[in-house]
């Protein structure tokens, strides 16, 4: 093999090394590089140099930091492009909660994820059609529009089994939420203000309740 041919082969191998390192080389080119690495003492040094380029290029790219609010700005641009989200017919409560989760700002999304996980556990306890073993999770939109409700935040360490048992035992329903802060809207089947106040007191007294706020009271609730 002449010196010119040797250099030509070296040039070819040097050209292929970046693709050998990124794992995209295949077939005869991969075999050629592997054979060169195994047979030429200069090849391993060349591989080391290419690895240094690999590190340098990665470092140069990683030093560029995309803006932290890129996703939330993109979400707004997408809404402007695609229009308001249509509520899918018959979409599940969980799907709606997921859609709400995906719409929250990036900064709070992960905090909300923990609450969403809890919601998944609640959802897993109910049967298709909205009826659970122990409690009803939601009614028709008309029912929900009229229903008295309270705003409730559960403690982070609350057990879902405790919550579900309590909700089911008292005819309570989760009818909305969670918000970005983890607040659920809890339907309260109270016929009057006194009953509503009593039930809110009962919810607040539970060890898993962190915050309970009044929402819509019954018609005579003043």
């Amino acid at each position, binding site marked *: 093999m002449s010196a010119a041919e040797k250099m030509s082969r070296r040039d070819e191998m040097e*050209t292929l090394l970046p693709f050998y390192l990124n794992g995209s080389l295949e077939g005869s080119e991969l075999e050629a590089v592997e054979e060169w690495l195994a047979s030429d003492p200069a090849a391993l040094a060349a591989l080391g140099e*290419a690895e240094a380029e690999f590190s340098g*290029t990665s*470092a*140069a790219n990683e030093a*560029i930091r995309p803006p932290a609010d890129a996703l939330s700005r*993109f979400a707004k641009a997408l809404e402007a*492009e695609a229009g308001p989200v249509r509520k899918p017919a018959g979409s599940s409560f969980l799907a709606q909660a997921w859609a709400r989760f995906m719409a929250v700002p990036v900064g709070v999304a992960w905090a909300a994820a923990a609450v969403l996980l809890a919601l998944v556990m609640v959802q897993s306890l109910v049967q298709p059609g909205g009826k659970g073993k122990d409690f009803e999770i939601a009614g028709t939109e008309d029912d929900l529009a009229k229903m008295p409700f309270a705003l409730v935040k559960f403690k982070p360490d609350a057990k879902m089994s405790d919550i579900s048992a309590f909700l089911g035992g008292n005819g309570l329903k989760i009818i909305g939420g969670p918000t970005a802060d983890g607040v659920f809207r809890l339907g309260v089947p109270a016929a009057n203000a006194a009953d509503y106040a009593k039930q809110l007191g009962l919810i607040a007294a539970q060890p898993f309740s962190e915050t309970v706020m009044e929402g819509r009271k019954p018609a005579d609730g003043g």
Partner: protein
Amino acid sequence: MTAATETDRALVDRVAKGDRAAVRLLFMRHHARVYRFVARQTGSEMMADDIANEVFLELWRQAPGFEGRSEVSTWLLGIARFKALSLLRKKKEDWIDDEAAAAVPDGADTPEVVTMKEDKAAALRRLIDALPEEHRTVIDLAYYQGQSVTEIGEVLDIPVATVKTRMFYARKKLGEALKAAGYDRGWP
């Protein structure tokens, strides 16, 4: 084909059906790389921000026509490349040159002297950044974006042979620049 790639394609299928959560997931997965690719292409993070956003809106618009002939990442980089070139042609604004100029060390030291003061890794990184755009781009696409020769050809819309030629000259120039800076690596 990796599982991750299949998932990308499945997400594009969902986007094609109007699933906004899917396009957000793809955004989270690929945005940083697209952003960095454009920033390196244009030298402007402001342009990278605008273009990266546009790339994912384009994904939303074009998803129904995506035939899966290339990887999703390659497709996105191709869109980014096209948009970056279009914008650069359209704008030709001075601030791009200003940003590039700001990145160059002042005239007190020649590039060789600056390089001598650095360690080899820092010198290498600076010399990669100083490569002509067409050479730096193939370096970025191979080393950082993990693209194959064929995929780089798709992103840049050039023949495979041209990809190899550019890679050869990119690495040759790097070797020569390093040698001039006192780091002879034995090739070229």
